[in-house]
């Protein structure tokens, strides 16, 4: 403790202490010299031998100072001050270095923030590490469904390895595993409910809900923000209808959690009592969703009676119907592997008993106990591939930036060779010089990192906007958090160490004598010895920068071409001036058959708005649709890829899909009139060839078959996802089908900006039934853009990245060339004195730059061809070896290289021989 204060005191007294030490050593020298004079030496000789005996006074001082205080800290402060001074003295160098590093680090931090939010973050519940998700994996996904015990599945599945994976199970499996409490301290089930009509105090909105079993909240160990959460007693058939709402909904609609408890709300027109509110940070178990409310699972018996896939008490007993998802909390000390080993056989036995034939036995699903700390993997599966791709790209940018810095430092190290030689020769410790050079580069990297965080902050906001791109309720909110800051810091310091070390090592390896001999001649002398190694290193860096830039430009080209291909897809309808919106009258309490009249009456009202040219409705928008039912043509099943769209009157005239023959569906087609259908060109070609299809009858299968007469043929319009090929499509009047009508998407053909009509539309719907909220209002053009979201993001980001890479590489090339010209001033001067023309000098410099470019492209093109296979799955309509893309990439690169080389080349050609030669 005392020594701490003494050191502190000494630190403040440093200057005086150093003077004292100097005086003390001086006294020692004089004493020694005097003594030797007494021994008979001459004065000079005595002084000389005394000095010799003392050794290097600077080192003695240094060693003595070392015992005073925190020598390391002191030296660090010294080094930092020196580093900052050097950086300020070379403003251009510092600006270039900081800019390229900040861009590299900023881009990396922004992307890493998203990776962190999506791939790495844990659920905001206590002890997330002990949570596990239950999934199954089955070997043979492609065969027809009867090959599986999963006769019907309601939920998401994904292809994994050689088979199919999913997290949905029959309810019986939940009951089976819940019994096994040797493994789990808690097992809970849940499934995602559809969007619901939620009416609070007479005001309706569409909200997302989650069905949860009674163990859900205790299993996740979530405390209520107010009231109580759902318990086992709430989750049984016939229990009073209760609901738990999210903190966000409580704030929005009840102005606070405390006010919400005990209130009544209407969910799909059924009264539920709010019993509690979840904490603000809680978003359920899937980071891709954020439910507004949580219902006891058995409330689905109340709510889902009317939908076509109605949940009945039998549904809970169905052993081949897969629909609920499960998570568990492991008992302390139980590992995932142990849990899987304990539960898999029980599951195996259970599903084996549900197989109805030997083929089903061959491909039974196998239970997997997977990590649950991060919640469900929906987002991870959706975004991890694109994010890893982006991370590779920004990683490459950082590599270019680092190569740049290394190159700049390398050039500068050569320039500082003399300074370092002087320092070494007057006794500086090599390690000390190295440390100082390292301090400089780490300092640079650190500043770059700080700037990078600022850029990243801006980049994250930009990326969020880019990724959300019109998605309502985009749940992904990445922020710069501690992880990200630490990752950036480590990254920048690591960069500093990497690019600081190589030049630092080289600098201190200088041969002191030759470097000291002075003048540029001497510098060239040692350089000619080291030239090969040094120059080749910096050349390798420049060429690799060109290679990486080429990769980025090619990637950008491929994504831009993909986007333009998508944008030029023939839609078969007119995308401009169409307003789309969705509403669901059934959830607001409308019933058959009145609901059909209600929908039609609304359509008529919309059509009569001044400025609306026509109005129609369909069960989904053309791009959002994907409904298939069994269709029989002349008693045989129609092509399996056949899709149907339930439409209202005037669909074809509103969407401007040309009718080839016959008439479109219109007001004449009522529930009671003859069943009619409009087929698209493709359907006719597949099923009737050249025969006249008008008047032919086809049958919609299912439990209530219905005969339909073909009244018209429409030209092919795009149906489903943008990348899907044209399919056979049937357009069936929505009021003539047995399927219960649910939500409807209205399409209005407008004059002028479709969004101008939104207030009028809202008013009409509100007047017709105030309980019905309007959802997902968008223009047709915006909907199309939304489906290309990922491609748009990739094209924009990659173009940005490629430009960034070109700029950074350009800076590097410029710096290296300019430095090379500066070094060769004398040589160029001699050449010009001997009669070389300006043009020749310029060609000489540019020739070297072009050589780099050619070399870079020679290496880069095969690399780009190889690497572009990795992005193949992101491409559409363009091959990885697209000649146009490759050609323009090469052209752009040559242009950038010429630009970077031109300025220094011009300067070289302006060198005045007299000045150049006089300098030496």
């Amino acid at each position, binding site marked *: 403790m*005392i*020594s701490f204060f*003494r050191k502190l005191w000494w630190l403040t007294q440093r200057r005086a202490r150093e003077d*004292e*030490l100097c*005086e*003390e*050593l001086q*006294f*020692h020298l*004089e*004493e*020694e010299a005097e*003594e030797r004079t007494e*021994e*008979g030496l001459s004065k000079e000789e005595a002084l000389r031998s005394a000095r010799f*005996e*003392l*050794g290097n006074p600077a*080192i*003695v001082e240094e*060693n*003595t100072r*070392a*015992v*005073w205080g925190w020598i390391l800290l002191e030296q660090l402060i010294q080094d930092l001050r020196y580093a900052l001074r050097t950086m300020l003295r070379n403003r251009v160098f510092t600006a270039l270095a900081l800019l390229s590093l900040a861009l590299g680090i900023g881009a990396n931090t922004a992307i890493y923030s998203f990776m962190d939010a999506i791939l790495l973050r844990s659920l905001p519940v206590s002890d997330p590490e002990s949570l596990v998700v239950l999934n199954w994996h089955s070997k043979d996904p492609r065969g027809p469904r009867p090959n599986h015990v999963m006769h019907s599945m309601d939920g998401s599945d994904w292809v994994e390895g050689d088979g199919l994976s999913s997290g949905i199970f029959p309810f019986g499996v939940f009951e089976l595993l819940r019994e096994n409490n040797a493994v789990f301290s808690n097992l809970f089930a849940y499934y995602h409910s559809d969007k619901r009509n939620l009416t609070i105090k007479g005001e309706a909105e569409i909200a997302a809900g989650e069905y949860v079993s009674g163990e859900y909240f205790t299993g996740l160990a979530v405390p209520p923000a107010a009231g109580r959460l759902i318990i086992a007693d709430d989750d049984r058939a016939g229990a009073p209808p209760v609901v738990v709402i999210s903190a966000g909904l409580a704030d929005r609609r009840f102005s606070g959690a405390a006010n919400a408890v005990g209130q009544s709300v209407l969910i799909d027109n059924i009264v539920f009592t709010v019993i509690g509110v979840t904490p603000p940070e809680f978003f359920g178990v899937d980071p891709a969703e954020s439910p507004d409310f949580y219902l006891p699972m058995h409330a689905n018996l109340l709510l889902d009676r009317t939908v076509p896939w109605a949940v009945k008490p039998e549904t809970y007993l169905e052993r081949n119907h897969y629909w609920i998802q499960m998570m568990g909390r492991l008992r302390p000390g139980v590992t995932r592997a142990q849990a899987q080993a304990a539960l898999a056989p029980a599951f195996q036995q259970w599903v084996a008993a549900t197989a109805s034939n030997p083929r089903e036995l061959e491909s039974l699903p196998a239970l997997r106990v997977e990590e649950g700390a991060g919640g469900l993997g929906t987002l991870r599966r959706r975004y991890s591939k694109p994010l890893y791709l982006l991370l590779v790209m920004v990683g490459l940018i950082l590599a270019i930036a680092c190569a740049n810095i290394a190159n700049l430092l390398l050039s500068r190290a050569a320039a500082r060779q003399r300074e370092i030689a002087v320092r070494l020769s007057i006794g500086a410790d090599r390690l000390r010089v190295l440390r100082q050079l390292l301090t400089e580069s780490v300092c640079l990297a650190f500043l770059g990192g700080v700037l990078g965080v600022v850029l990243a902050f801006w980049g994250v906001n930009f990326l969020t906007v880019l990724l959300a791109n019109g998605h309502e309720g985009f749940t992904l909110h990445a922020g710069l958090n501690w992880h990200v800051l630490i990752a950036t810091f480590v990254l920048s310091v690591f960069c500093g160490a990497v690019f600081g070390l190589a030049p630092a090592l080289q600098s201190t390896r200088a041969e002191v004598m030759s470097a000291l001999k002075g003048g540029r001649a001497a510098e060239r002398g040692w350089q000619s010895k080291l030239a090969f190694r040094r120059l080749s290193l910096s050349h390798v860096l420049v060429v690799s920068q060109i290679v990486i830039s080429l990769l980025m430009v090619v990637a950008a080209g491929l994504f831009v071409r993909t986007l333009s291909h998508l944008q030029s897809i023939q839609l078969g309808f007119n995308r401009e001036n169409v307003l789309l919106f969705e509403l669901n009258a059934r959830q607001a309490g409308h019933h058959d058959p009145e609901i059909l009249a209600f929908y039609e009456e609304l359509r008529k009202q919309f059509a009569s708005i001044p400025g609306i040219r026509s109005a129609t409705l369909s069960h989904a928008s053309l791009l959002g649709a994907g409904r298939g039912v069994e269709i029989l043509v002349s008693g045989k099943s129609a092509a399996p890829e056949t899709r149907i769209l339930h439409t209202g009157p005037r669909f074809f005239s509103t969407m401007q899909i040309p009718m080839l023959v016959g008439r479109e569906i219109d007001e004449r087609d009522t529930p009671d009139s003859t069943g009619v259908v409009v087929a698209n060109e493709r359907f006719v070609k597949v099923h009737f060839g050249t025969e006249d299809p008008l008047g032919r009858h086809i049958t919609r299968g299912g439990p209530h078959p219905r005969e339909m007469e073909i009244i018209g043929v429409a030209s092919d319009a795009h149906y489903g996802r943008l990348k899907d090929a044209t399919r056979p499509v049937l357009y069936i009047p929505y009021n003539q089908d047995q399927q219960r009508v649910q939500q409807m998407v209205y399409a209005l053909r407008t004059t002028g900006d479709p969004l101008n009509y939104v207030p009028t539309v809202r008013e009409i719907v509100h007047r017709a039934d105030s309980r019905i909220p309007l959802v997902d209002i968008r223009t047709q053009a915006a909907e199309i853009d939304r489906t290309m979201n990922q491609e748009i993001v990739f094209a924009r980001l990659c173009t940005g990245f490629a430009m960034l890479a070109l700029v950074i590489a350009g800076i590097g090339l410029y710096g290296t060339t300019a430095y090379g010209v500066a070094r060769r001033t004398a040589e160029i001067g001699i050449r010009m004195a001997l009669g070389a023309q300006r043009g020749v000098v310029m060609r000489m410099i540019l020739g070297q730059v072009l050589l780099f470019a050619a070399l870079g492209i020679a290496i880069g093109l095969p690399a780009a061809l190889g690497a572009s296979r990795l992005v193949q799955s992101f491409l559409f309509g363009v091959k990885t070896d697209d000649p146009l893309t490759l050609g323009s990439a090469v052209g752009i690169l040559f242009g950038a290289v010429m630009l970077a080389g031109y300025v220094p080349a011009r300067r070289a050609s302006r060198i005045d021989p007299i000045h150049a030669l006089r300098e030496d």
Partner: protein
Amino acid sequence: MPKSEPPTRLELLQGTLEVLILRTLLREAKHGHAIAKHIQRTSEDLLQVETGSLYPALHRLEAKGWIAASWELSDKGKRARYYRLTPRGRKQLVAEQSKWEAFSRAMGLILRPADQEGQ
């Protein structure tokens, strides 16, 4: 040259310099040069104190609080930095001295058993 070279000079063992300095300062305060000379003379020129390690050692001892320093005039009237033993240094010297005596006795016992056997 009148001065004859000492037969062989001994390398100082690690940590011995500090004890030697403390012992040298036991009777009176001395400046650095005098300390070096005193050690050299007293050891019959067997021990040569390197200036390069003398001053760091002095400052180290000062930092530990075993010796204290002050600027005074030397015999010849020049300003010199004089070091003297503090009470803590005296205590330290006693401890170090007994440690060294024990150590040299142990070394002697091991290195000289042949003589004893011969007797």
